[in-house]
């Protein structure tokens, strides 16, 4: 069942630095708070922001795994048979397949069975205290090559034998679409869309005090429970995503588990990393790379990101904060360790 709208805050227009106007809207979608900021809004800003909110609702309705009647879950149920899906779902599965191909299977959305088997079966599983699931099913490694089918018209898919979870790319795709709406509408001089830590921006940020450099500043939170930030990044004209075990960790079958599943084993990835943050041009790809880098573990992440020129920051389970060469120019502030 899609979440009811819960409007947390409506500051339509407020005065930024020097009296400059900024439009801010907040709502909840896809299990996360969503914030839209438009600096120096144009006359089209209000309608563009409303379109963004509707866009998130549409993506959630079609792509959520927490509603048995969603387009995704009906396609999952159809398995190797053709299923009719809406445009957002078709595009999301197609984007997931592209990511699967381009990462040689390191990104693989066929992890739904493993997630449910570990007890992550509802959208509101987390947030109300520790979760402890008594029974855990055996892991389900994907084991086979994924070969979905897509029609030319963009309305039919065959997902294959194993059901899909689009949680590893869906929010990034939604943020991508939101940024495109705002940019296409020329909503303002600069915009920021943020959904549960997945962020996309246009422009160089809000107005600052004289002498302050302009940039969209994004803080990377500690995955280890501390209140301090690990770094502040320049995310101007870019997208940021983070995969972290901080929120979605629980106990299942008497052991500690989390939601970042290694497709090759069906088990939560183990490698000594607590969180990965990536800056990229595209929000969906930023999200994909966070998952893939997480799988490399602390021993392999450095070589992996440098060979591909990825802008990444990752934090080991011992709190060590590391950045790649491509990320270094975007680091405005950083600490070597977090708690």
């Amino acid at each position, binding site marked *: 069942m899609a979440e009811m709208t819960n409007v947390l805050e409506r500051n339509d227009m407020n005065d930024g630095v020097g009296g400059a106007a900024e439009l801010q809207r907040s709502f909840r979608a896809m299990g996360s708070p969503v914030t839209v900021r438009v600096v120096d809004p144009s006359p089209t800003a209000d309608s563009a922001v409303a379109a963004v909110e509707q866009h998130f609702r549409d993506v959630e309705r079609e792509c959520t795994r927490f509603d048995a009647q969603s387009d995704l879950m009906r396609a999952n149920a159809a398995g190797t048979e053709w299923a009719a899906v809406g445009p957002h779902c078709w595009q999301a599965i197609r984007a997931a397949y592209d990511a699967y191909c381009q990462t040689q299977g390191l990104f693989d959305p066929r992890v739904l069975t493993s997630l449910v088997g570990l007890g992550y079966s509802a959208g509101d599983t987390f947030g109300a205290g520790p979760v402890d699931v008594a029974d855990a099913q055996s892991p389900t490694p994907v084991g086979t090559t994924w070969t979905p089918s897509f029609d030319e018209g963009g309305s039919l898919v065959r997902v294959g034998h194993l059901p899909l979870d689009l949680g590893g790319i869906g929010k990034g795709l939604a943020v991508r679409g939101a940024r495109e709406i705002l940019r296409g509408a020329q909503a303002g001089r600069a915009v920021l869309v943020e959904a549960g830590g997945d962020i996309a921006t246009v422009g160089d940020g809000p107005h600052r005090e004289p002498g302050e450099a302009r940039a969209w500043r994004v803080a990377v939170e500690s995955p280890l429970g501390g209140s301090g930030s690990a770094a502040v990044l320049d995310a101007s004209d870019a997208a940021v995503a983070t995969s972290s075990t901080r929120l979605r960790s629980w106990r299942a079958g008497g052991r500690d588990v989390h939601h970042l599943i290694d497709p090759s084993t069906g088990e939560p990835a183990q490698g000594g990393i607590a969180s990965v943050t990536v800056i990229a041009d595209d929000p969906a790809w930023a999200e994909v790379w966070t998952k893939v880098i997480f799988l490399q573990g602390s021993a392999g992440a450095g070589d992996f990101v440098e060979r591909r020129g990825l802008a990444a920051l990752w934090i080991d389970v011992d709190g060590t904060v590391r950045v790649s060469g491509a*990320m270094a120019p975007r680091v405005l502030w950083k600490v070597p360790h977090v708690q």
Partner: protein
Amino acid sequence: MRTRSRSNWAALALVAPVAAASFVGSVVWMRDHDPRAAVLTLQQSESAQQGEAVSDPALQDLAAQVAELQARADKVRGQAQGLATGDTGQQAGDGVISPPAPAAEPAPQPDAYTGASGG
């Protein structure tokens, strides 16, 4: 009986490393054990102590080399300090040197956050 050149060589072998260390303020081995360079170093050190300007081109070239060694020594001292505090700016295994933030500097106020609720 020792010849003059042999006694010079012996003296230089003792003086050269000491002169270099005293001039740059840290223990840095000179790459080329050039007796003439060692002599020039000693002369420059003595001249500097006496307040004399160094005008000899060879000495000027040597001064440039010493400046480079000074910079290297500063870098070594910085890295040693970082090792003591746990932050070298270079994390083992990723081959990247990232500029560490001074611990006393507060973080700039962010516009958004990523990480705690990351999926």
